[in-house]
């Protein structure tokens, strides 16, 4: 009897912090302020948010998880949107921002109104907000490190960059060039802007390809690998090792090549489900947890041996994805402590 009581007491003690945590945020409302929805990554991001958010609401963890997207990807529009969310009395606003600094005014207003602001992917620099950032530079560098291992003899590289003038593009490219500087057996023979879109990448690569020497590998930023493959095929050139970016069409193409010729590469990007990580971080802050202001998003990397399972779980036309649970989010937070 005594033993049973003790067990029950221990079980209760163990369960208590968790249920207390749930109770404290059960009446809290979280809003997502999103600046853009016009590509498959953002669509997947919104879907993950809706899925995990609805479940959290149904489970009584939070009272609401509403997503709002601006139509025009304009800073002014998103600033106005954030002001509306303040007036609507949300307890936390999760932001994927159109600009790192231009929204700071609106974010400060939200903080001053006692609202928790968590920015992710497109982060804001306002100190009162939390930032869940991506180490894009490391992502670029990882590509070269993989190549250095794969082809120690080195070779000529074609670099496909993103949208000119966007900070993400500068960071990934800086990482790639840093990697090349440390591995001088590689040389960037050409560089084009693919705007993270397969058709733009295909066009740009098709243009520069005739003037290039034989290419050993293509370093990319995601959303451009399949387009690059199409361009090489159309030009009748041998297809080099193309780093992929977790898009369904890229993974599917890779799988086809792998089955046909044993083609080897790797794929790396950010899971769109990072929006759910931001949601849990906001929930934890509302719960009174002490969360570091700067967190880093882990990459989602796909290699030769786990290609099939990742392809199977990736929605047709979507992006390889990971949705976070509360426990996953706590792990990311603990890693940053």
């Amino acid at each position, binding site marked *: 009897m005594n033993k049973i009581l003790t067990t029950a007491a221990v079980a209760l003690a163990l369960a208590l912090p968790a249920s207390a945590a749930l109770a404290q945020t059960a009446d809290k409302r979280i809003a997502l302020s999103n600046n853009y929805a016009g*590509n498959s990554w953002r669509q997947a991001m919104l879907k993950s948010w809706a899925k995990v958010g609805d479940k959290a609401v149904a489970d009584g963890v939070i009272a609401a998880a509403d997503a709002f997207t601006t139509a025009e990807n304009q800073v002014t529009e998103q600033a106005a949107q954030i002001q509306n969310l303040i007036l609507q009395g949300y307890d936390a606003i999760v932001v994927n921002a159109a600009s790192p600094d231009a929204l700071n005014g609106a974010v400060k207003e939200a903080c001053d109104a006692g609202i928790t602001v968590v920015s992710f992917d497109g982060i804001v620099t306002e100190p009162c907000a939390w930032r869940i950032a991506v180490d894009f530079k490391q992502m670029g560098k990882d590509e070269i490190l993989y190549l250095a291992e794969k082809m120690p003899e080195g070779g000529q590289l074609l670099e496909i960059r993103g949208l*000119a003038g966007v900070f993400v593009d500068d960071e990934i490219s800086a990482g790639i060039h840093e990697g090349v500087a440390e591995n001088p057996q590689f040389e960037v023979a*050409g560089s084009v*802007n693919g705007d993270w879109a397969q*058709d733009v990448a295909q066009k740009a690569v098709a*243009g520069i*390809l005739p*003037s290039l020497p034989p290419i050993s590998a293509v370093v990319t930023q995601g959303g451009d690998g399949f387009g690059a493959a*199409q361009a090489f095929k159309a030009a009748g050139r041998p297809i080099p090792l193309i780093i992929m970016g977790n898009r369904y069409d890229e993974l599917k193409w890779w799988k086809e090549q792998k089955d046909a010729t044993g083609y080897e590469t790797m794929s790396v990007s950010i899971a769109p489900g990072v929006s759910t990580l931001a949601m849990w971080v906001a929930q934890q802050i509302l719960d009174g947890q002490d969360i570091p202001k700067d967190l880093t998003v882990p990459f989602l990397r796909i290699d030769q041996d786990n290609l099939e399972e990742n392809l199977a779980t990736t929605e047709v036309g979507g992006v390889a994805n990971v949705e976070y649970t509360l426990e996953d989010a706590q792990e990311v937070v603990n890693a940053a402590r």
Partner: protein
Amino acid sequence: MTPTLRIAARLLEKPWLWAFAAAFFVWLATIVFTGGQGAAAVLTAALAFGTFSVIVGIGQMYVITLGPGNVDLSIPATMTFAGAASMKIMDTQDSMIFIGLLVALGVGVSVGIFNYALIRLLRIPPIIATLSSSFVFQSAAIAYGRGIKIKPPPVLAEFTTARIVGIPILAIFTVILAVIMAVVLHKTVYGRSVIAIGQNPRAAGFSGISVGFTRFATYVLSATLAGLCGFVLSGFSGGASLNMGAEFLLASIAVVVIGGTSVAGGFANIPGLWGAALFMFLLVTMLNTFGLGAGIRLIMTGLIIISVITLAGGKSTGR
């Protein structure tokens, strides 16, 4: 004046000459830089990608020729919606290609009718009407496809990427389309009505031209060509994506203007569209080949386009 000189002199008066000349010099600069390597392959690529700008450029040119204020900003959204809808309906089956094409064209016709209804019935200026309808149709494409990229049927993919002795088949068809549209523009009542309305809509109306119907037909034409372009581009690039039309908003207007068509309306020419489309592609290729940074590339693109338009425009003002 000898006959050759006379021909040369007449040729120099053509507003489209400058676009071709610019394309040629940019191509020359590229192959000089590479030491002759890839000279033909670059041209093949330019023809392949120029095709899409020309298809939408023809529609945009007809609209712009209607006179000041006329422009079709719904082209990117129409392309995206037509591409997404047709790819989804064909669902990679070869037997459905014809139906897919009809769907793409149907989307185009519907957008055109919707655009003109906004312009005519609600009296919204074309620039606002087509911009707002582009939001409607872009959202429709997002809701319909949810970002899903469905592959084209194999035969369509094969056809849109096939080439004969280095010339893309699609480019050959588009040249034929351009010739037909040039004949329509200069030799038919409809085409001449478009030009007449662009020069003076009141005078055109008094001379018995049905201004309303001509404008209606032109907006439908532009949207239909955008639908067609969305269809073939989806086949060419391995499926429809939500942002596939984005670059064609500016490209469709740029090829019209650089090609020597008057932005103020009333004067149009089709050959210039091809010259300008090749020029735009080769220009980016040249700057990429030179290995310049993105900032310098954009500045150079701007400056070179300004110079070409200035040269071409200087010739056509005398008319």
